[in-house]
């Protein structure tokens, strides 16, 4: 039996998934607040190989060793590295700068900390909190907001942006109910009218295990089922909001090209392996036992 034929085929499929993830990153190189994803591959479960018929004088059955017969793309992990800030000058654009420290942990360039026992911890991240039409909260780093006709601060898809009072932020003067067109964000995350009247404070959620967030598209993430609601992050210090800026995608073009080429070539290598098995099979079928 040629086990490797299926192993190579599994390798091709896994590389295809990797390639898909990289091309999706490339596709979102201009998407504000986008966080690139990485595919993690895992080997198929191990199996034990044993000899079932030995030669004379040898034991009937002997364990040879362990064998993995394939690989699959196991998971997609979003990498929440800070993106660069780009100035837009628009008062409806907000960018989050998040660098939450955890005591006793030093996070590396990819935002994770590996303890001496191998335990991996990801750096907690801050997010804008928006309300999905299904009534649940969503989290986003895309602070390119706009306003609807009623004066609610919304994402480009119309999800209201929540304030610290857990209500959507309404850009209307609290006294006169007149629409407010000019507002400023103070260092504490509070939106104020030009004469200093508070309109509401942006609700920033602190997600302690950001890698468990599920990317939903439209720039938003949702919590994995069973995960607890994130804590409220105080603005200032480790987490800051900048008005008039957007956070750019954290996809790196050069890195993506390399990953893409690599996925393609490993895919090709696996194809070659399949072709070699094909030759072996050809020999077995057509040449062995030819008279």
């Amino acid at each position, binding site marked *: 039996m040629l086990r490797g034929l299926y192993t190579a085929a599994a390798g091709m499929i896994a590389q295809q998934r990797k390639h898909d993830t990289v091309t999706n990153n490339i*596709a979102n190189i201009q998407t504000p607040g986008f966080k690139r994803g990485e595919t993690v591959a895992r080997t198929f479960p191990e199996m034990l190989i044993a000899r079932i018929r030995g030669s004379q004088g040898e034991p009937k059955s002997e364990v040879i060793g362990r064998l993995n017969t394939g690989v699959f793309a196991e998971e997609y992990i979003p990498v929440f590295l800070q993106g660069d800030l780009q100035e837009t000058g628009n008062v409806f654009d907000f960018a989050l700068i998040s660098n939450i420290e955890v005591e006793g942990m030093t996070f590396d360039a990819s935002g994770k900390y590996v303890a001496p026992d191998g335990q991996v911890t990801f750096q907690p991240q801050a997010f804008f909190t928006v309300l999905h039409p299904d009534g649940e909260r969503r989290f986003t780093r895309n602070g390119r907001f706009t306003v609807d006709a009623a004066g609610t601060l919304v994402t480009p898809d119309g999800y209201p942006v929540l304030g610290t009072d857990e209500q959507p932020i309404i850009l209307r003067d609290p006294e006169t109910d007149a*629409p407010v067109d000019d507002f400023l964000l103070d260092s504490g995350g509070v939106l104020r009218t030009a004469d200093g009247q508070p309109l509401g404070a942006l609700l920033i959620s602190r997600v302690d295990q950001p890698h468990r967030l599920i990317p939903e598209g*439209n720039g938003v993430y949702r919590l994995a089922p069973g995960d607890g609601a994130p804590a409220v992050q105080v603005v200032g210090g480790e987490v800051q909001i900048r008005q008039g800026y957007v956070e750019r995608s954290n996809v790196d073009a050069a890195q993506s090209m390399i990953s893409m080429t690599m996925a393609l070539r490993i895919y090709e290598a696996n194809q070659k392996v399949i072709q070699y098995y094909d030759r072996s099979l050809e020999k077995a079928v057509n040449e062995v036992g030819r008279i």
Partner: protein
Amino acid sequence: MNHSMIQSSVTLMGLQQKIDLIAHNVANVNTSGFKRKEASFIDILASRAGQPPGFAREGRLTPPGFHYGWGARLGHIRIDFSQGTLKETGNPLDLSIEGNGVFEVEVPVQDADGNITYETRWTRNGAFSLSVNPEEPSELFLVTDNGHYVRGTDDERIRIPAGSKIKVDPDGTVWAQARPDLPAVQVGRLKLLRVLRPQSLEQDGNNLYKLPQGMNIAVEDVLQNVAEEEPGMAPIQVRQGFLEQSNVNLGEEMSELLQAQRAYQLNSQAVRSADTMMNIANNLRGS
């Protein structure tokens, strides 16, 4: 199925739209009163392939399921209402607005029965001229360069006696002086509106803006009549003899174009890579 191909081609389409938008801005770099448009990308709604609980093995970091993204689309196109520079022309009929305001004009619309009704539009383009009132030849109307009538605060067209000199005050009041030895008479006041919600305005071509139809948006929520405002708001003033230039910044547009083009190239590389992949799969059996 080749997801890479779908992702990249969808994104190429979005990038093409962005390049079109930049081209539109660049083409209007000399259109007076033109406001540039800008757009940004959003990732397309993603799907998630299910994985049975058995996949939750030791060392796994994410909840069960595998994420598939589908590329990016162009979303959230908005008009940048920032002030353009004012250029002196010396023409008394060239008016420009300093501040976040618009002029109100009326545009003839022909309905199904062939009757002409007038609809309200707004513009920043103050390159006005005069047109003769067909019913009263001694009277001229103030019109835009497309011939649309400019409205005054009384919601009527601004009428000016023929042959008079025109002077416009910063608050929009229009004076006409028939002869140098006669005092100027007030003939109306330009209707100026403060733009409160530029997001709710829609471009209507010919440098005009309108409210989007069928969305039930109240005019008061979008525009505010400057003449009825309480003092203390940021000033909106009319400058006579000046024209507002387009607020397109060529340098900015070119750098945007460069980035969009590079992203386009990168995505076409992804298409090529996906194509090579399909070729490899096709040649699995060898030739």
